[in-house]
């Protein structure tokens, strides 16, 4: 069973401010799901090479070139919760 401290730590890494009830629920639920995952430990994978994607083994590259698409800027700024002078506004970081 994972500890409540573990759950708090994962919640912090996940950037979710879980309430006490959720912390308790997740301690139980995540423990049982992680136990279920542990069945994979029995499988011998010493000679297996993992790959990320399923169909294409090759990397796909393109030129790192910015393209201006007219009109999209306005639509995207319209979705920003706090905007000033057409820029995304964020809280002071430093």
């Amino acid at each position, binding site marked *: 069973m994972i500890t409540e401290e573990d759950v708090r730590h994962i919640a912090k890494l996940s950037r979710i401010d879980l309430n006490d009830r959720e912390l308790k629920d997740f301690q139980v639920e995540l423990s049982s799901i992680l136990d279920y995952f542990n069945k994979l430990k029995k499988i011998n994978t010493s000679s297996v090479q993992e790959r990320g994607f399923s169909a*294409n083994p090759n990397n796909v590259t393109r030129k790192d070139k910015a393209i201006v698409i007219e009109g999209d800027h306005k639509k995207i700024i319209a979705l920003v919760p706090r905007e000033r002078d057409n820029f995304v506004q964020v809280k002071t970081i430093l």
Partner: protein
Amino acid sequence: MHLEDLTIVKAAEGLRKKEFSAVELCNAYLEFIEKKDAELHAFLNVNKGNVLDYAKKADSDIAQGTAFAITGIPCAIKDNILVSGIKCTAGSKILENYVAPYDATVVKRLKDAGAVIIGKTNLDEFAMGASTENSAFGSTKNPYDISRVPGGSSGGSAAAVAANMCCFALGSDTGGSVRQPAAFCGVVGLKPTYGSVSRYGLIAFASSLDQVGPIGKTIEDCKIIFDIIAGKDEKDSTSFPRPTVENRFGIKGLRVGMPKEYFKEGLDPGIKAIFDKSVEKMEAAGAKIEEISLPHSEHAIACYYIINPSEASANLARYDGIKYGLSIDNGKNLEDIYLDTREEGFGKEVKRRIMLGTYALSAGYYDAYYLKAQKVRELIKKDFEKAFEKIDVILTPTTPTLPFKLGEKMDDPLAMYLSDVFTSPVNLAGLPAISLPAGNIDGLPVGLQIIGGLFQEEKILSIGAECEKLWI
């Protein structure tokens, strides 16, 4: 004539012969939605604003002889696929007021082919679920029995097609989310090969598993839609050009594999009986049925539920309350905006998966969980590759159970995860598969799944079209 229960093929024929107009067809569906959707809740948003303008445009294209196969055909789009200018919520409070700034490639292709988008359908939040109960906006009900779930996560799309509220729909399938609801609602669903269909404009969930797929009333309808949406897209580097090899197949002489591991335990005996009857009919039509082994099947769910939340936890890091969507600002620092927005905006299953994924990727656990799962994924892929050396397709039930009752599995996440037991291995291996109706038990539909090798959509669709005639 009931306009709302036509297939794409029949509706297109009626339009061409001027038996009815695209506006009349669209109105028939809108009326049906009005009548039925209060009870079923398949739609999150009906495009009342300008849907008739699209239908009028379709009528003029038909009159001028510039129509395509789906010009004027009303369809529904799962609400995690972007339709420009229309809200796209992904079933989440965090995107409740998000208006899509562009069309997903699949949507653009449907629009270019003349389809009329009638609305956006309900789903489990960010497609995480197998029942549509995880939607932040309420569950969809199964049209065959409203006390039961329609499946998920594309439950709204499957229910909308089954209840004649649209002619066809798009869903997305990460671990069975097109096929399982198609089976539960008695319709056809195709999960294409990973890379067959562009994911551009599909809200990212688990990027190495996600695919958009059609849900329709018949195999033929699903093939029409697949042919339109499939193919290389410059905006999705994992997309592939359509293979040009013709790979149509018939039942006679077909080698069908039956994975013995799928029939061990947990399979509803009624579903097994329908499976056996369907197999007999295929044998009578000349198919050779062979027992095969996919030895790592029993580990697929564990493998899938490590990889899926890991990718989800990374993809969902973008919902920060800064760029778009919900933003909770209690006047403190930047990090508090992240913490409060995500606590408020995400539902329980989404939080559960982000937590699981973060854990599986975190220092000290990466090797034991994520890396291990990626290696097991290779073994699962190899099982399929080996099986396809001696058989043409694999036949399985789509789901181990009939549509379950609303609320039945909500308190037991592992039980819900096991709904994907026959479908998620297919996503891990990147293969194409369809679910199609094979019968019913006490009025509840049962679907069977046909799995093909990579990029063999045409093969499984042509076999499915024959099974469609044989089974029902």
